């Protein structure tokens, strides 16, 4: 979508005629969402926009501004209505006292908004990050709380003498304020050293770092020995120190390859070899990062695997690159907030959208240097050959539905009665087939499917081009699972100490969850539930991948997710929502809110009530989530690659400069694809493409 957005810019004055071919009825791929019964939002997973998504936010801010200028501003509102800042995160870990310990941190708001132009002269360098690290670490020390007890919370500084005394007492408990100050001072020293370091100073820097780290580790370990409530600080500091030492030892600071120097290392192994303790390597902080990145090979929780270079790049961007807020919550579903405005604005620009077109073969010319043909399954034809109108109004705004509109389609009712699913890789039913020829029907192609689908849509390229073959084999993906519940009681009533957080590093299989109460008013309930909560995680792969003929595979995995979700609600969730259980210790299924739009006559009772909620297994090849395993970066192909005259690629699986499965990686890749086709935008204008 970012490629189409760039190519259709008014500045190009219609030079490029853009057509988007999309399987099924909605845009967005694994970021798509839909509206189900009662207008409820149904997502592929949990989507949070991080505060460093500059390119993504810039595109969406431009989109909203363009809609407003075109008289359509009231359709979707201002971009700041669509995203709200969120600076609180929570991580969970098994407590040594039993149950879970909740580690919460408040990230300080920072000036500006994501998508703002970078300040003049600011470039992303590792010394820049280290200078930022000091500020953040100090903020973490001040704002970290463990099970509600502040280490030294900023909220206590009301100026009242007794509160100040309590705060000082807590600082003393840390081992006297002087030691905390020493910690901060040492970090400041590291930042200063980093800032002034030159390649020839690397040895001095390393010696200083190792000395400071050794004394800090001793201090931190002593603290931990006496007071395990400081464990979070110990672990974060330990990981930070190991990172700095490792980057210095590997000369990352000055190497022209930047963080790619350490891309062959597994992230935790890298930290371990540079001094991080096993305890820190198993900390909720690090586990949360792996969970969010779904960094488990084949979804196997015993095989955590993320490359060190991209892991650190992502961490640095996440913690030190954000503007405005650490995270931004979307007001509604990703489809509604992102893809509906883009669709509306691009339609107004003249972009064409061909829904129900599934690419089945991208034909390579005999010469092997360009795309010769594109063959699509036409999954459905519209009545009277009209354009398919994909959006439906919910709560006054245009939204994507969770299923296609049969009334617009020839044989639409039959498709419904026969259970067609145009988004399923295994459902190959179609109405027609069409082949486009180069120079007659198209000039250039930007392939934007997920990397898991590439072998299925471009088999000739995979067979003939060793780089494409290697990319498909080495750029790993994982399946994911998700479920959503709507409840008649909010989380505070259920015992979660709140306020609303995204919570990571929780018990498997659903390690990441988020209270989404803020989206409920956007849904179409007659009688609104108190909240909705989204859960997501990896879904382990079977030993052998399913074949194309295994039509039941998606249904089996979906049923498996349902079982996982039901077990999860009856199991680990009791630790954080004790109020969701009755006197006998059973989950109170009646708090789940069934759709109230008449689609269900009577809400089932007991465990069967879960059947009225939403769950899914993201097992379609194109829906699989890309991960960055050690060494895999060299198998990614850049959208700028010139192997084929009329082809570029886009997606978070390409060599976009930011090799992580996320919106920003996808948008950066889309911008690169646009640059490959028309030279615009300039590479220097893609924020953080040039980045260590």
């Amino acid at each position, binding site marked *: 979508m970012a490629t189409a957005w760039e190519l259709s810019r008014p500045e190009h004055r*219609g030079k490029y*005629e*853009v*057509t988007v071919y999309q399987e099924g009825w909605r845009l967005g791929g694994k970021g798509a969402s839909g509206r189900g019964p009662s207008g409820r939002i149904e997502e592929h997973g949990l989507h949070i926009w991080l505060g460093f998504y500059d390119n993504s936010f810039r595109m969406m801010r431009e989109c909203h501004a363009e809609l407003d200028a075109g008289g359509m501003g009231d359709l979707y509102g201002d971009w700041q209505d669509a995203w709200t800042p969120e600076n609180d995160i929570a991580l969970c870990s*098994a*407590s040594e*006292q*039993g*149950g*879970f310990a909740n580690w919460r941190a408040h990230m300080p708001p920072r000036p500006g908004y994501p998508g703002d132009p970078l300040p*003049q002269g600011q*470039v992303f360098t*590792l010394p820049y990050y280290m200078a930022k690290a000091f500020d953040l670490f100090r903020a973490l020390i001040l704002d970290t709380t463990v099970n509600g007890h502040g280490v030294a919370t900023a909220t206590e500084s009301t100026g009242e003498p007794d509160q100040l005394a309590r705060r000082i007492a807590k600082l003393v408990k840390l081992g006297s304020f002087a030691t905390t100050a020493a910690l901060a001072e040492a970090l400041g020293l590291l930042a200063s050293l980093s800032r002034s370091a030159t390649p*020839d*100073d690397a*040895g001095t820097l390393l010696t200083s770092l190792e000395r400071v780290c050794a004394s800090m580790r*001793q201090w931190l*370990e*002593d603290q931990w*020995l*006496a007071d395990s409530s400081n464990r979070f600080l110990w672990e974060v500091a330990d990981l930070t120190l190991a990172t700095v030492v*490792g980057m210095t030892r590997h000369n990352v600071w*000055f190497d*022209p390859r930047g963080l790619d120097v350490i891309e062959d290392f*597994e992230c935790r*192994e890298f930290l371990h*070899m540079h001094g991080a303790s096993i305890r820190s*390597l*198993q900390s*909720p902080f690090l586990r949360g990062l792996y969970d969010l990145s779904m960094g488990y090979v084949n979804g196997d*929780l015993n*095989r*955590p695997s993320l490359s060190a270079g991209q892991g650190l790049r992502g961490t640095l961007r996440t913690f030190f690159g954000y503007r405005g807020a650490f995270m931004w919550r979307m007001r509604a579903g990703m489809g509604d907030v992102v893809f509906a405005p883009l669709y509306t604005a691009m339609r107004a620009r003249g972009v064409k959208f061909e829904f129900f077109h599934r690419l089945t073969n991208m034909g390579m010319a005999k010469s092997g240097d*360009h795309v010769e043909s*594109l063959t699509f399954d036409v999954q459905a034809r519209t009545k009277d050959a009209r354009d398919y109108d994909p959006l439906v109004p919910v709560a006054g705004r245009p939204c994507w539905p969770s299923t296609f509109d049969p009334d617009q389609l020839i044989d639409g009712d039959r498709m419904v009665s026969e259970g067609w699913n145009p988004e399923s890789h295994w459902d190959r039913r179609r109405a027609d087939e069409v082949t486009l*020829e180069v*120079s007659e029907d*198209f*000039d*250039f192609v930007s392939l934007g499917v997920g990397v898991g689908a590439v072998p299925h849509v471009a088999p000739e390229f995979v067979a003939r081009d060793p780089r494409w073959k290697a990319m498909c084999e080495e750029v790993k993906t994982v399946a994911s699972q998700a479920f959503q519940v709507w409840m008649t009681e909010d989380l505070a009533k259920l015992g979660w100490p709140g306020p609303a957080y995204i919570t990571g590093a929780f*018990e498997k299989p659903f390690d990441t969850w988020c209270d989404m109460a803020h989206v409920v008013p956007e849904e179409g309930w007659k009688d609104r539930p108190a909240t909705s909560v989204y859960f997501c995680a990896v879904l382990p792969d079977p030993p052998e991948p399913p074949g194309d003929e295994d039509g039941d595979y998606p249904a089996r995995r979906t049923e498996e997710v349902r079982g996982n979700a039901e*077990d999860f609600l*009856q*199991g*680990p969730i009791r630790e954080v929502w*004790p109020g969701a*259980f009755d*006197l006998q*210790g059973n989950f109170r299924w009646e708090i789940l809110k069934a759709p109230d739009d008449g689609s269900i006559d009577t809400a089932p009772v007991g465990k069967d009530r879960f059947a009225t909620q939403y769950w899914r297994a993201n097992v379609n090849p194109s829906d699989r989530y890309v991960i960055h395993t050690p060494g895999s970066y060299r198998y990614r192909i850049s959208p*700028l*690659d*010139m192997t084929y005259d*009329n082809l570029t690629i886009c997606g978070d699986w390409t060599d976009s*400069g930011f090799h992580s499965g996320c919106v920003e990686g996808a948008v950066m890749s889309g911008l690169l694809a646009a*640059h*490959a086709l028309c030279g615009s935008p300039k*590479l220097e204008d893609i924020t953080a493409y*040039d*980045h*260590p």
Partner: protein
Amino acid sequence: MTTPKSTGSRPKAAGHAKRPVPGRSDPIRTAARIEEAHRPPSQYAEPADQPPPLDEMAIDQAVANVVKNADDVLNQTVAQARIAAQQLREGNYNMRDVPVDVQIMGLRMIRLARELSETTLNVCEQLLRQFTKVGRPPVPGQPGKVPPFPSTKPTGYGYSPASQAAPPSSYGTPQTAPPPERTGLELTVEFDSQAKAIAHPAHLAKPRLPVTPDEISVTPLRHPTDKGDAIVDVAFTVDIGGSLIARIAIPPGQHPGVYSGMVVTHKQDVPLGILVIEVIK
């Protein structure tokens, strides 16, 4: 995908369209080059002979610049001396200027010597540092695997995912009282000698104040009936995971039996607990 304005049935062109060749196909990963690439165009070009800052130079380039600078200073000094000599020969010498000229020359030579010495030392230092870089960092996979993340499965209340037992609930009373809060130190006992011995589980309280392992000790481990000599060689350390370790050396021929001692720290009066071991025959 892009198509020309005349979509549909236009005649097939003789050749397919080709993408423009991009200026580069990789991101810039190094700070100096990022700054250069992102610098806005300036109407004033920088002097062509402006050397880059020393910290961006390779060692050979740095040495070349040092030599060049030294040559420049030397040449200037020699040239000035020639002018002074010429003036002396031509009888234009102003006696009042002589001390100044000599002073300037002298100072310049001293400065030159100092700069050369300092530069030489700097170059040597740089070379020495480069030697230290011969010790390469480990290669991927060498240090051994880090174990996967542990389960976050809560250990309290006898929880298990498949269990249907009554859980704690704010709506109900727990069926059983929760176990006492475990606030102690995890202690591992290791024996240094060949003598057979085992440790009996002991619960140690956490120190009330921060202590280092060196500040923890144990009173001599004694046999209840004093049949054997007291065991005194006990040292405390902390392993990488944070557990407290007691290393005990059992003297050869130690009388079999149970030995115990109080684990203490000088920072508090109350002992942390009792360490109990059993020497086996």
